[in-house]
Structures are given as C-alpha cells and as structure tokens.
C-alpha cells in the first residue's frame, strides 16, 4: 500500500491498472490520483476506455493487473454494491432510473443505504432534491421525465448514497447549453461540500471550465495530465483527437 | 457398445428435429425478445395441418409439407402484425404471460375441436428401417433428419446471400441501425416471424411421418427446443443446430443409461453446466 509522505493523501488512487478483453488491451498501465474537493476531467476520443475505467473502479469489471485505493484502503475486486458502500457513487452514460417509481422514491431508495429508516431517508432525499434543484419533479414518474431531469436524478441518487467520490459519465451528453450550465452550477456546489468528482466528458465546454485537472486517455493509455489550459495546447492530445495532420 | 452407438444415432436423428424446431424459435426470438411459450402449440398446429392433409386429401405429410409451411408463414405474418407488434411496449412479464395465454388458448381449442385422441398417419414407409454397420436407422426419421439439414442449409444461404435474408439478419442484430439503413423493420419483423413459423411448419409436417399428434404434444418439444436455443445462444443459428444435436444425443443416451423419465432433468443438467461455464450459451449469443 502506497502512502504519501506529505500530509495531503489522495482520496483515491489508481495504481498501474490494466484490463484485457480477450486479447484486446482495453486499459494499459493507467495510474492517477484524485484528491478531496477536486474536480477532475477524464477526456479522450471515442473508444479510449473512459467508461471502462469507471466500470473497473466501480467493480463491474475486475482489472487484470493493478490496484485501486480509496481512503487508503485497497478496494480492488470489491463488488459494485460494496464499492458504493465504501463511498464511491456513479452515474451511467445511458441513464438508468428506477422507471416505475417517482423521482422522490428513486432518491429515497438511494438514500436508504445510509439511512435505514424511511423517515430519515426521506429527509436526506429532500436535502439532495434541494441541492440538485429537482423540487418541481419529485412526484413525477422517473421513466417519463425528460432526459435532463433523468440525468439530474441519476446524479442525485449517486449523491444520496453518501458518496465522497462521484464518477460522472457524460452528464452533459444530450443537454443543451443552458441545461449544461445549470448542471455545472450544481456540480460545483457539490464539489464545495468536499466531494471529489471525476467527470468523463465529450462536451469540452462542460469540463474545461469546471475542472481543476484533466486526464487524457487514448487507446487505453493515459497520454497527458495537467490543467485544462495546458491540455488544450498539448500536441499529443490534439493528435489523439484530430489525427496526425492537425498537430503542428 | 453397439447399443450406445444405436442410442447415439437415434439421438442425432432426434436432435435434428429439435434443431429444426429450435431454428424456428431462435429466429422468432430475435423479433420478440421474450420466451414464446406458444411455440409448442405452433408445432402442434403444423402437425394437425399435415394430418388433415392426409385425412381430407390423402396427402403424404411430405407432400403436405410445402402447404403447411406456407399456411404457417401467413399465420405467423399476421400473428406478428396483430398480436405481437402491439404488445411490444408492455412490460416483459405481461408479454411472457401473453404467450402462455396463447398457448393455453390454442391447446384448449385443439382439445375441443379435435379431442385428445392421438392421431397418426399410417404410411407404408413408416416402419422401414435400414441397417448401417449394425445400427438400425428408421427411414422416416432419416428423411426428416435430411430435411432438417436441408432447411438449415437453405436458411443459412438465404440469410447470408439474399437481400431479404441480409435485411433480416441486420434487423435481428440491431433494430435501430437497420431502420436507419432504410430497412422497413416492421415488415421485416412480420416476415421473420412468418419464416420462423414456416420452418416450424416443416418440422411439424416431418414429425407426422413417424410421430402422432394430440393437443399437448407440442409442449415438451418446445421446452426442449428452448433449452436448445438458450444452450446454443439465443438468436444464434449455429447454436440452435449444434445445441439440438447435443441435447438429442444427451437425451437418447441418458434415457438408455439412466431412465426415460430423466429426459428433462438431463437436458436441464446440461443446460446448467453450459451456462455455468459460458453464460451466453455455447456460442455466446445475445445476452440481455
């Protein structure tokens, strides 16, 4: 187990993670750290492996090599529900609301992880609803609300599980600029409460303005890491997205 | 040793029938995406059709066969259009139950119309057997097996080398993209369903050359055919064929070695074993 010598230990650490799918190297020796209160963007061209990393962290896949550490504890190989219990929450690229239930019930169900009594879970749910500005939707059936609301619901559910690290998978996809800005404000207020966030994004507007740090993934490898500004000028990144010809 | 070889050969012949029924099933599964419990009733209907071909026109079931196939195709086409398609938005448990409802409806109607008496067609070649290296092979079963092979081959050629066939394959794999490619997916669903039932019709007619029909005859066939499909990977043609042969042999050998009652248990044990090692079926078919 690695321990940082300085006082500020990483909240989360990926150490030399590799994953194959039958001969295809999907993720190759990826390592990074996430600190509390950080918003980190994870970008890269299609097929780079971003969602795979999320699936690996949250236990839906198991890495072939490497370890994950959360709050100093080795969480590699834990099952998805255990990862959530440890304090890592996630959203899905294709939203997965509990369709027949109301928005409120969706969030209460998620809150029941930390609050076994219905009453307490409901109180917690209302706090989350306020934070995520879902007040007007609480009685609507989750399956029938428009996409931006479903996305916010997924986010609220992940929050309600008491997560200290949130993995957001393309929350901006399918949203118009107004909706994106609204969402970003909510994400920032959540970050101020001390929750670390990793955002996988394709919509640059979403991630470049809000993240303090960017990780760039291409063909399963981490090819760059740095501030948004330095990444935007990085030749390797440009090459990965646009191909040889554009990297001057 | 000879008896086991006999059992294996019988199993292969039986397996051919299972494969044929399973092929029809797996095609339909691609369209419906749920277990169609009424499939056995479809086999039963085809068998009755072949029987009436004999009772009213004196046709050998193999002569009735093309007519049965056509009738079943039309039946399937309209069944899809009026019953299946409208229900696609319902929760899957309701649709699953609906297929049971259809099965109950068809079996009970058959019972009322044609009673529970076993009906068989007396054929002069019905009891012919020939000897191949010490193993007795029943002639009608052999013919049925050849037919099954022919159908499988024909289907393979159709799906891979004709416009219509390729459209069906594409739609089964990914509806949205097929639609975007300009394929009229609704029409394809109906045709696929009709085709699946037509193949089932061939199986039913073939069965009448050596078997008998009664209202509930279809169910055990369908159950086995389903296990075959799941074993081979739902939606996979090769899987249905290979799975059918494997289950046929397993049942036949198992019935000889253990006891005929254990047919279902053997199929099930096989099924479990395969699923444990390959959750998507032997060929890793379409998983949910």
């Amino acid at each position: 187990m690695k321990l940082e010598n300085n006082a500020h230990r990483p909240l989360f650490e990926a150490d030399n993670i590799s994953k194959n799918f039958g001969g295809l190297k999907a993720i190759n020796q990826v390592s990074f750290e996430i600190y509390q209160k950080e918003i980190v963007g994870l970008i890269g061209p299609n097929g780079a492996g971003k969602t795979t990393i999320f699936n690996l962290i949250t236990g839906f896949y198991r890495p072939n090599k490497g370890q994950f550490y959360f709050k100093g504890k080795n969480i590699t190989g834990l099952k998805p529900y255990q990862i959530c219990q440890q304090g890592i929450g996630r959203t899905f690229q294709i939203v997965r609301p509990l369709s027949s239930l109301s928005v409120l019930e969706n969030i209460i169900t998620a809150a029941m992880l930390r609050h076994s009594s219905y009453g307490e879970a409901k109180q917690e749910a209302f706090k989350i609803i306020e934070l995520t500005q879902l007040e007007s939707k609480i009685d609507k059936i989750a399956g029938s609300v428009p996409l931006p609301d479903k996305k916010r619901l997924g986010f609220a559910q992940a929050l309600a599980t008491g997560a200290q690290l949130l993995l957001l998978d393309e929350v901006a996809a399918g949203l118009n600029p107004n909706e994106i800005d609204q969402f970003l404000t909510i994400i920032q207020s959540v970050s101020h409460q001390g929750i670390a966030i990793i955002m996988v994004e394709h919509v640059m507007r979403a991630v470049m303005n809000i993240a303090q740090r960017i990780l760039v993934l291409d063909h399963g490898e981490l090819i760059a890491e740095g501030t948004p500004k330095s990444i935007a000028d990085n030749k390797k990144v440009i090459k990965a997205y646009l191909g040889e010809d554009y990297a001057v | 040793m000879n008896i086991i070889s006999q059992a294996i050969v019988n199993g292969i012949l039986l397996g051919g029938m299972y494969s044929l029924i399973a092929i029809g099933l797996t095609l339909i599964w691609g369209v419906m995406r749920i277990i169609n419990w009424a499939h056995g009733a479809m086999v039963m209907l085809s068998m009755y059709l072949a029987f009436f071909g004999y009772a009213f026109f004196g046709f050998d079931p193999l002569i009735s066969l093309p007519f049965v196939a056509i009738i079943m195709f039309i039946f399937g086409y309209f069944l899809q259009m009026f019953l299946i398609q409208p229900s696609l938005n319902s929760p899957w448990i309701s649709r699953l139950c609906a297929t049971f409802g259809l099965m109950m409806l068809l079996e009970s109607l058959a019972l009322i119309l044609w009673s529970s008496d076993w009906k068989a067609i007396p054929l002069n070649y019905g009891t012919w057997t020939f000897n191949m290296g010490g193993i007795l092979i029943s002639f009608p079963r052999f013919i049925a097996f050849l037919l099954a092979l022919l159908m499988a081959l024909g289907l393979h050629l159709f799906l891979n080398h004709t416009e219509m066939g390729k459209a069906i394959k594409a739609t089964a794999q990914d509806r949205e993209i097929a639609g975007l490619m300009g394929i009229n997916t609704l029409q394809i669903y109906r045709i696929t369903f009709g085709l699946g039932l037509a193949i089932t019709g061939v199986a039913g007619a073939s069965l009448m050359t050596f078997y008998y029909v009664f209202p509930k005859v279809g169910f055990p066939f369908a159950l086995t055919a389903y296990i075959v499909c799941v074993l081979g990977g739902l939606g996979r043609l090769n899987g249905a064929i290979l799975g059918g042969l494997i289950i046929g042999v397993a049942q036949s050998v198992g019935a000889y070695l253990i006891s005929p009652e254990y047919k279902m248990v053997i199929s099930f044990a096989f099924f479990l074993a395969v699923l444990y090692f390959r959750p998507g079926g032997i060929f890793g078919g379409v998983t949910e």
Partner: protein
Amino acid sequence: MRKIKWNLETVLFLILFLILVILPLIVKSPYLMDTAITVLLFAFLGNAWNIVGGLSGQASLGQSAYYGIGAYTSTILMIKFGISPWIGMLLGAGIASCAAIILGYPSLRLKGPYFVFFTIGFAESIRVLFLTWDWVEGSRGIIVPYETGLNKMIFFGKEPYYYIIFLFLILGMMITYLIRQSKMGRYCIAIREDDIMAQAIGINTALYKTYAFAISAALMAIGGSFYAQYVLFIHPNDLMSLNNSLIFMLIAVAGGIGRLFGPLIGALAIMPLWEYFRSTFGGRYAGLGIVFAGMVILLIGTVAPYGILGIWDVLKRKRTKSTQKGGQLENETRK
C-alpha cells in the same frame, strides 16, 4: 402505518372483505365452497409468488417445487412421526426456505429467459426426484388418512378449511405489505426496476433476492401443507408441476403485477370460470374454461399489461382528471 384514505377503492375492498367473511354462511353448496377455497388458496399462492415475481422482478416458474416440499414435509411428519400438521407446516416452511436459498444461489446471476429456464429446470428435477423416491411413496402418491381433529387440520365440513385459508391469505398479504414498506421491499423493487442501477446505489442484490426467494418459498410450503390436509392426497405431478407455477404467475399478473391485491383479484377473475368449466363439462369441453382464461391473459399481455388493477387505475385517472393536478400516478397509494 399510513392513514387509510376513504374513497371508492377502500369501500369496495371493504365490501369484498365482508363478502369473503360471511361467504360460508350464505353458500351451502359444497361444490361452490370448494371453488371458493381453491380461489383463496391460489390467491395465497399467487401472493407468495408475487414476492419474487412482482416485487423483485424475478419471474420464477419453479415455485411449485416449494409448494410440494411443504405438502410432503407436513404429510410425512404426520404419517410417519405423528407430528401435527400445524407444526409440520412450519417445519416444511423452514425446509422450503433452505432449499430456496440453496437453489437460488446459482440463479442469482442469471437474467431473463435464462433465469426462467433455470427455475423450471430445478422444479422439474425436484418433481422427478419425488416421483422416484420410494420413502415418500414416489409415483404412488400419499393418501392422508381421514381422521378429523383440529390438531390434525382435518375437518368434516368445508367451513373450517375456508376460514383457515382465508386467515392464511390475510396473513400472507400482511407479510407482503410489511415487506413493501420496509427497506427490503424498496430494495427488491429497485432490483426489479434495474438490477445494475440497484448495485450502483449500494444494494447487495444477491442478498435481497435470496431473502425474497426464502420468504416466498416458506409461504408456498405453508400453502402446500394446507392443500395436503384439504385434498387428503398428494402426488408430485399434482403439486410440483410447471402448470401450477404457471397459474401462480398468471393470476398475479392478471390481477396486476406487483400489486398487493393483484393475486386475489386475479384469482377471483380467472379461477371460478375455469373451475366451472372443468367440473361441469369434463373431457374435451373442459378446455372451454382454459380458452376463456387464455383469452383473458392474452388481453392482459397486449391491451392491459398492468392487469385488472391497471385498468382500474386508468379508469380512476380518467374520472379524477379534472380534480387532480396533471393526472399523475400515485405509486404509494396503490394497494
């Protein structure tokens, strides 16, 4: 417990309850009483099925195995060891629960048709096991000796049976209600809606599915014990059949999948006519009842996927559309 809202629904259910309570006093024909008992028994069993099928979304077609295990356990204990079926019933429930936990384990990762087939397979295997097991009389079946007595749960008339199964049904429905209000209930619903999302919000889906399997099996077994003491003859093919499992599922879905009163409504809707045709006609025309039932179920699958209670909901919404804000469904007040 929530405050009961007094509206048309509550009144109707109260009337239904009252009718059921005084039924034996009005009905004297043993044939009709038999139908009534059958309806309540299947409502009870359908309710037990609903815990795995409707609440947790695991459409098991193997529940009849536990029905049989319950019947056999209490009967064997009574005949070979002289133990009262009231106790044998509880032991049967315990054994069935254990069996469900063991059998449930391999099925936890199976989805959709794979899961359904697995459940059919294990039920069939258990049926064949009992058929070939000499100690439980196998294919001969077991005749329960007719000696009346409360401790033997065997009675001369039908009324005591009626009230016992009615009581069981009420208890069963109360258990279902309590589960739904509890954390387990909510988690099972989440599993039904989306297994993967449930895992992502911290639900140990394997554990809760196992709880559901165990509780459902226990209730099934209790129903089986009742059946044994009522019909006084048990046989693996009568009890552990795929047919039975199907009926449990069908009446739950016909009434309204996942709804508390679903199985009762479904049983009331389908079983009486089915029974009527079966006993009145017999032979080939016995099929008429099934034709009817088949058509009802077909309609459920295509036009009314949420069952009879679903249709009721739709009618209710249309009636109150003018007074309600935007016609929203209230999931929590659904009974």
